[in-house]
Structure formats: structure tokens, C-alpha cells
């Protein structure tokens, strides 16, 4: 697991208060991990802080799964 993947998963676990074992790449924040709309906003803000990135609203809407978050951060940093 790359550094980015690990950090994204850690943030998801912290922000959503879920068990690490529950978090897979395909996990949907809302459908699988029980996030509400406020959770997803906070999650995106936490990702912004962690990676020093600015994620515009239209991009944030598309970040609905763990994999989508990892892909987005990788694309930003790559």
C-alpha cells in the first residue's frame, strides 16, 4: 500500500469513526460507511488539510469512494 493510500484510509477511519477493517478501496462513504452529507464535507476538508490541496466543490462531489479519493489525490500530486 502506498503512502497516499495509507493516509487516505487513515483519514476516512478518523473522520467517519469506522473500523479500519470496514474500509476497502471500493467502500462508498455514504452507502457503505454510513456518512451523511456533513461527514463528506468534513472528509474532503480533512483531505485538503492532509495533502495541502484545494479541492473544488465540483471535484469534491465526485469523491464518493475510498478509491476515488486516492485517485484524486494521486492525480493532484502526480
Amino acid at each position, binding site marked *: 500500500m502506498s503512502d497516499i493510500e495509507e493516509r487516505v484510509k487513515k483519514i476516512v477511519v478518523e473522520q467517519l469513526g469506522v473500523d479500519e477493517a470496514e474500509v476497502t478501496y471500493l467502500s462508498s462513504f455514504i452507502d457503505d460507511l454510513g456518512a*451523511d452529507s*456533513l461527514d463528506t464535507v*468534513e472528509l474532503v*476538508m480533512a483531505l485538503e488539510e492532509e495533502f495541502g490541496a484545494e479541492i473544488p466543490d465540483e471535484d469534491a462531489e465526485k469523491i464518493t469512494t475510498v478509491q476515488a479519493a486516492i485517485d484524486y489525490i494521486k492525480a493532484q500530486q502526480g
Partner: protein
Amino acid sequence: MDSLINLQGEIALVTGASRGIGRSIAEMLGKAGATVIGTATSEKGADAISAYLTEAGVAGKGIVLNVADKDSIESVVKAVTGDFGAISVLVNNAGITRDNLLMRMKDEEWDDIITTNLTSVYRMSKACMRGMTKAKKGRIISISSVVGASGNPGQTNYAAAKAGLVGFSKSLAREIGSRNITVNVVAPGFIDTDMTRELSEEQRNNLLQNIPLSRLGQPGEIAGAVLFLASPLGAYITGETIHVNGGMYMA
């Protein structure tokens, strides 16, 4: 009783704290143990706040903030968070009046009121949101006015802004209740401050006839309601407006 109103460890920011109701709120929250940052529009006002806080033995200080200026709000919230920690109690008190009959009202008079009395509350609340959601606790208390509920000739702008605070607070209360953040309003009636000292003797007497308690309120009587909402005693109250007006308007 003391332990119930202990605000030790809380960081309170009170806008418009150089005099009147704001000053009373700042002093009372401070005496209950909170660290208090009071804002004023001028250096002189900020110094005066620092002076009265120090005199009362309250931790904190006065700082300059123009609530009508987005950048000023962002930099102040950032600076306070850096110096003292995340703001856990926000009291939106700063406000102005620009009274005029609607037929004579100028766009500037309308815009000034909406910007200073309503948009500021949106911006201040937003700026404090991250710190509060992270901490999973917070209190946002905005000072409205009886005229937001009752209406008052010559104050269409002021009443609109003050009523706007209520709808804003109810909506925000629903948005962030799950994060243990309460959002409430305190609506003062006629309080003995510089703002009401501008009234004529005749206006004053007319007013008193409509107040069952037959007197103007004191700033401390508003501060008491704010302290209650800020303390653990008010923990289960959110989206609510507390009217403190001597009975002149019963909601």
C-alpha cells in the same frame, strides 16, 4: 451552582464588545471562566476591551475586527485560533442601526445593515465552523432584537436583518446538531445602552407604557441569557430564540 456555569477551557469570541450589551457579555463569560476575545472596530476600542478584561481578571484580550469585511474576519479567526485555540463559543453581537422610513431609505442604508448585522453572522459562523466540528462541540449565539419579531416603523432594514438571524440560526442548528454544536438567538427588547439613549424623552415614555416590567433592561440581563446558553445548562437548547424584553413582546 458554580460547577454548572463553569466555562473554564472555553474560548469565547464576542463581536462588538467595547460597550453596551457586548461588553456585558464579554465580562460575564469571562467571570464564568472562559477566555474572552472581544472585538471592536477601532484600536482604541480594542485597547479598552483589553483594559476591562484585565481589570476583571479575565484571560483574553480585545482585538480590531470589522465584521463587514470578509478578509478581516478570516484573519482574526485565524489569529485567535493560533494564539488561544479554536473558538468554542461565538457570540455575534456587533450591530448598527440606520433608521429611516422605507420611502426615504437609501440603498446604502439597507446594504450597510444587511452586511453588518446579517452577512457578518454568516461569515463569522462559517469561519468558526471547522474548529467546532473538529472539536465536536460549540455554541453559536447571535444577538437579534425584539423588532425582528414585532416590527418597528423606520427599521425595515434592521428588523429584516434581525429576523434573518433567526432563520439562519434554525437552519444551521439543523445542519450541525449532530456535531454537538448549538445555535441560538437572544432577542433583547429595549436595553439601556448608547443605542437606546438616542431616543427622545417622549419615545422613551411611550415605550415604557408597553413594557409590563415598566423599565428598560440592563445589559447584564441580556448577558445572563447568553451565559445560560453558552453553559452546560443550555446544552439541550438549539435553534431557539430567547426573548429578553420585560414582556413588551411575548413570542
